């Protein structure tokens, strides 16, 4: 059995999660505290990947980033970036696809914090960024963990978007979920089964860890 698809899957999930964390925190902060009229629209856009078929996202990304298109050719020419049938493209698509899974928990975390914590820090003379880093984020650790893990696990599980924009190129875009499909088509049920079992085991463990940590079980055991 070739383990490249598994490695690629976890590489993709890791990179995507890191990017999502950097994008997700400011976005969640804005959604939690802004009173802008644009907010419902941005909120809707962030949530779209939950309901939209992944193939729709994949299809539009494919159209937009195709070198035959203005944006695609501009990216290719000036940044040397080709976002279709490439790893970078997969990361970009995964970030969009898993965005709600990172943003929603963090946004809920911010919203559930008492407003007074932020205000107290401001009255103390602390800047917004200091308040965010030293008061808000440390007090929403469970929400951050949930966001991280859901985004990671969701990226492992994606199929439609990857197939549309990445195709099935060994070591470049053939992630585990695609490899399983590939093996089933070739009637190699044993290999498909191995891949599937590994994915099942890993995602089960990851989610279990979240529930154990956030449910306070780990703290109880180590006391």
């Amino acid at each position, binding site marked *: 059995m070739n383990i490249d698809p598994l490695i690629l899957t976890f590489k993709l999930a890791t990179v995507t999660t890191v990017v999502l964390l950097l994008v997700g925190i400011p976005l969640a902060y804005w959604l939690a505290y802004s009173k802008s009229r644009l907010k419902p629209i941005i909120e809707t856009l962030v949530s779209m990947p939950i309901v939209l078929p992944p193939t729709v996202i994949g299809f539009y990304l494919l159209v937009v980033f195709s070198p035959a298109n203005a944006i695609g050719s501009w990216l290719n020419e000036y940044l040397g970036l080709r976002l279709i049938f490439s790893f970078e493209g997969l990361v970009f698509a995964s970030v969009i696809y898993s965005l709600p899974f990172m943003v929603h928990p963090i946004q809920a975390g911010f919203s559930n914090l008492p407003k*007074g914590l932020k*205000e107290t820090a*401001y009255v*103390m*003379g*602390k800047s917004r960024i200091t308040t965010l880093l030293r*008061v808000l984020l*440390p*007090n929403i650790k469970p929400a951050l963990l949930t966001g991280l893990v859901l985004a990671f696990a969701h990226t492992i599980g994606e199929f439609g978007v990857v197939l549309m924009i990445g195709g099935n190129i060994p070591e470049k875009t053939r992630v585990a979920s695609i490899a399983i499909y590939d093996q089933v088509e070739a009637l190699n049920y044993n290999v498909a089964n191995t891949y599937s079992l590994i994915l099942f085991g890993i995602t089960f463990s990851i989610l279990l860890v979240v529930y154990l940590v956030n449910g306070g079980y780990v703290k109880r055991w180590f006391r």
Partner: protein
Amino acid sequence: MIEFRLTKKLLAPGGEMFLDVDLSIEKGEFITIYGQSGAGKTSILRMLCGLMEPDDGTIALDGEIWFNKADRVDWKPQKREVGMVFQDYMLFPNMTVKENLLFALPKKAEASIVQELIEMMELGELQNRKPETLSGGQKQRVALARALVAKPKLLLLDEPLSALDNKMRNKLQDYILKIHKHFQLTTILISHDVAEVVKLSDRVVELDNGKIIRAGKPLELFTSNHLSGKFQFTGQVLNIQKEDVVYVVTILIDSNIVRIVADEKEVEALNIGDHIVVASKAFNPVIKRINE
């Protein structure tokens, strides 16, 4: 000295309300804003510390203009040197007691103030504990200490003691008086507890529906018809009971419950829960030392 004139349209539980206050407070003065909930008390404090923008008005502290609508001056909360204590403490749950105080320390300030406050507020044994393990009274002591770390010119207390029991309130009132005097603060307290107002403040301002309706020395204000009594206490009516031809009124004074005989005429004006003054004249009090 702080002077402010603030107007703002507010959404109160009973509909729209127009807040319009004009006050000047001397340096070192302890002033209480007294009034029913929804009268606009908290909004005044929020506007003073910059968390809420007035529709119109000015705020000036010792000649520094913090807010002036006409000139579009509006200092951020960060820039106004204010200490604020909320009713629900707002301690940072991720930090220990000491870390909470240290976080409040401005960048170039001497850290010795933190130690001084820890001693003054008797927090030594609690300093390495997280807020979640503290009682309400302990949390509020930490919040008070934390509000003073940056040596503010103005201390704002938004009903800081209303979640505490009577004994704890008394103790914390003593702490508040102590720090008010020690740091020569100008303090604005919000309270709807008459006993607390009388004990703590130099001056009380009564707010109703967004307007100041009365102001003056607490005792004079709350006992509007002048009494000649030598003893007087503020308390709250717990019960009114008819016994034969007289009434027995049960009153809570501080944490003591006393029963006082009253006639029908006196009782007519009283309701259970009323804040009252009990005064007595022309009797011979006994004074005895308490052996502790």
